[in-house]
């Protein structure tokens, strides 16, 4: 039975067509994957199905009935729920408060026969309801924990509970595995299958093709706002899907040359680097490693295990409480960002529009930021506009950046081109060390190829690179050595050439190879 059908669904933003006459149909009880590149229009489509955006044209049928949603509430009333990639949870509230947000249970008071409500929330009743729901789906979390204290996997469960409480039949998941460990992903797939067994319909938006192959029943491919393929999962392959998404054959793996760095000079060295967050907890704990000349060291790990804080420290935004950093045997601990750049360290920050670029500033201004005091551009405290524009022209050319309007703002660029601005700016400073964090997050496959190749080119020029990424495949493709971070510490190191996903996955979950059996044992005993 067709539970969702769209007919010529179209969404325009000004002149830009985000979705063009989309026709899809989803059968009841199936797991439907919707794949496409970043910016292909997947999210726009889902936001229309979930009532967050109104279609410009076209119709949505739910169980054969023409439906119009004005808000997510309408969608939920029609049985559609959505689990966003970035969870819509309130950190300071508890699990039960988050699950019931918007549908609070109120206390009623009685005086004699008359009952009335002071609009006070009935805490006990709320805890009871949510605990029962958790039990029913076997979710293994506590209703009274605060969101800020629980793991990412548990948070995702809260999001799912939120929807289940509202009795939805159709669950939309937007990039659900982006923040999970390989093992958590397996648990998540189990949850999906359980939900399916209970008769729910699932729509999975993703760009990870292995996952599509593993868990879905059918696939719809979207490219540039249009449906270009409807396939049954069992009849297709990752390769075919990738070709459909990009429009050409894609090398899913770059050419990487492995060498032995044993005898090379140490360029970068960390000794017991430690820092605290505002609550006084050590978020980075005693991190030590070194990078040799020409080597790429990757740091893998589930997001939120101290990578961001480590990066902030290494880029000079956050102070360390103890430990030392050396660049070519010169101590650079707690150097400010300006002095780090002067010492020939370049950065590709984790959050592009937060630390890397300023959306509301001009492209040329962003192209010199961080190096705007260099003699090349700035004399006696004044910046030469001509030299600034010259540099822009030169780098746009050199790095093949597609800019429709050179006098425009950064906000006019696509994610990939914006990232290339950072790459051009940082590579042009001819650094001894590059610290690259999530270099390809949110950019399309073409740009990923480009960025990966330029990082490898930098390596070929004998530069050292620290690569921090939550995309395991990215690290496995680029790095020579992989360090895994867990709860603020480096929990293990593997040789990239021979590493397996599973091996790294266990480390990401905090399980050391040598202590694995022991841990399992202990668990068995406590049970």
């Amino acid at each position, binding site marked *: 039975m067709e539970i969702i059908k769209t007919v010529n669904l179209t969404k325009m*933003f*000004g*002149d*830009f067509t*985000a979705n063009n006459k989309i026709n899809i149909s989803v059968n009841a009880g199936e797991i439907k994957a919707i794949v496409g590149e*970043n*910016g292909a229009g*997947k*999210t*726009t489509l889902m*936001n229309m199905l979930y009532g967050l*955006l109104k279609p410009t044209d076209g119709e949505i049928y739910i169980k054969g009935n023409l439906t119009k949603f004005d808000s997510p509430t309408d969608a939920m009333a029609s049985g559609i729920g959505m689990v*966003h*990639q*970035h969870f819509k949870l309130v950190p300071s509230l508890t699990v039960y408060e988050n699950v019931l947000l918007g549908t609070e249970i109120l206390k009623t008071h009685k005086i004699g026969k008359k009952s009335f409500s002071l609009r006070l929330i009935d805490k006990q009743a709320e805890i009871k309801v949510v605990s029962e729901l958790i039990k029913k789906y076997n979710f293994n979390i506590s209703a009274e924990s605060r969101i800020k204290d629980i793991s990412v996997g548990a948070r995702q469960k809260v999001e799912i509970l939120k929807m289940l409480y509202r009795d939805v039949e159709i669950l939309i998941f*937007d*990039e659900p595995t982006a923040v999970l460990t390989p093992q958590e992903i397996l648990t998540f797939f189990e949850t999906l299958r359980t939900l399916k067994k209970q008769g729910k319909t699932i729509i999975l*938006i993703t760009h990870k093709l292995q996952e599509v192959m593993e868990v879905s029943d059918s696939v719809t491919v979207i490219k540039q706002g249009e449906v270009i393929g409807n396939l049954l999962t069992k009849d297709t392959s990752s390769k075919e899907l990738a070709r459909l998404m990009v429009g050409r054959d894609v090398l899913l793996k770059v050419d990487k040359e492995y060498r032995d760095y044993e005898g090379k000079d140490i360029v970068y060295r960390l000794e017991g680097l430690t820092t605290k967050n505002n609550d006084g907890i050590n978020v980075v704990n005693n991190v030590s490693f070194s990078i040799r000349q020409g080597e790429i060291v990757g740091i893998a790990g589930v997001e939120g295990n101290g990578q961001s804080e480590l990066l902030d420290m290494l*880029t*000079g*935004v956050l102070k360390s409480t103890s430990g030392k950093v050396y660049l070519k045997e010169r101590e650079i601990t707690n150097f*400010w*960002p*300006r*002095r*780090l*750049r002067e010492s020939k360290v370049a*950065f590709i*920050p984790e*959050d592009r*529009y*937060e*630390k*890397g*670029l*300023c*959306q*509301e*500033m001009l492209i040329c*201004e962003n192209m010199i*930021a*961080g190096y*705007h*005091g260099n003699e090349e551009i*700035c004399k006696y*405290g*004044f*910046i030469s*506009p001509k030299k600034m524009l010259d540099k822009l022209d030169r780098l746009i050319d050199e790095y093949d950046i597609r800019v429709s*309007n050179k*006098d425009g703002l950064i*906000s*006019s660029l696509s*994610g990939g081109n914006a990232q290339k601005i950072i790459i051009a700016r940082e590579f042009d400073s001819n650094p001894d060390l590059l610290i690259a964090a999530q270099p390809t*997050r*949110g950019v399309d496959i073409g740009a990923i190829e480009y960025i990966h190749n330029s990082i490898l080119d930098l390596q070929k020029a004998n530069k050292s690179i620290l690569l921090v990424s939550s995309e395991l495949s990215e690290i496995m493709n680029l790095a020579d050595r992989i360090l895994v971070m867990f709860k603020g510490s480096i929990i293990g190191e593997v040789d990239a050439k021979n590493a397996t996903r599973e091996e790294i996955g266990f480390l990401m979950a905090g399980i050391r190879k040598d202590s694995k059996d022991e841990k399992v044992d202990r668990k068995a005993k406590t049970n």
Partner: protein
Amino acid sequence: MKKWIEKLKLTKTLSTLTPILIAFLIGAVAIILAKESPFNTYYILISKSLFNIKGLLKTLHYAAPLILSGLAIAVSFKAGLFNMGIEGQIISSGFVVAMLGYRLASLPAGVLIPLLLLVGIIVGVIMAILPAFLKAKYNVNEMVVTLLLNYAIYSVLEYLTSNVAFFRDPSSGYVSTYVIGSNAIISRIGGSKLTIFFFIVMIVFVVMYFVMKRSKLGFEINAMGKNRSFSEATGMEIQKKTMYIMLLSGALAGLAGAGWMMAEKFSYTLDFSGTPGLGWDGMLIALLGGHTPIGILVAAIFYAALKTGASSVAIYTSVPAEIIILLQALIVLFLSIKFFSNKKTKKVKKEVKANGVSA
């Protein structure tokens, strides 16, 4: 592409003019309440201050401190620092200059005037140090601190002027310090109200123009106001720059206070800065001028014209001169919203945001 730029400028002009028009429309209601004709009142307001030479020179004279206080507000607001202490810095500087202008009256004008201007600047800087330090070092909310310090500064100066014999001129009919010596007075040009001070301000203006538009500091001020994380990550050292910017702002305010004293007021009285005060006028001017130097120049002259005209309005009609502060408040109110934000860019931005969430 040129068309596109022209369009953008038109939008900019329109979004500046609309708040003024709306404010004048609402102001018209207030004028009708005073049983006068709005047209006549507005005509007097503008014609007396802009459409004759004498009035125009007077307007420029009044514009001089306003340009400085507008710049003082703009450099800090643009960097995302709400330094509301301009008013306190102006009156402190005025007070100290009044005192020294009387006590050092024997010095020759060629020495005394530059000295007093310098003293004014230093006083402005000193008054800015505390909030600047607290903000830069400990992130203490600069807006609340500067505002509360304004009340404190005003009270102290009121006390000194009215109760301390060293400062108070007993021969004056109202609360006032001694009048500064004639060597401390910045001379007028010809028979007009305009003084050399205006030209000093213009020199400062040109310097500030280049500082804001071309300098490394200007670049960093712009970046700090737009994205603090970005600024810190690209090595701008926000805390240090916060200090610089707040002190620069104080210096400009101090110069404004000194100049106003030596070119117009000559003694410190309780209404030295007027109503609602040069510092507050500066806020309107900076906003109206979109925090750009040229914008501030135009806005300062425009507002000075209103101020000059307001006294004529009070003379020729029964509308109180307070109409001007009403208009000022209304303009600030309507300036806080963007009337003509480019709809297309807005939508594209929204879309970028939506995709940003998914990406």
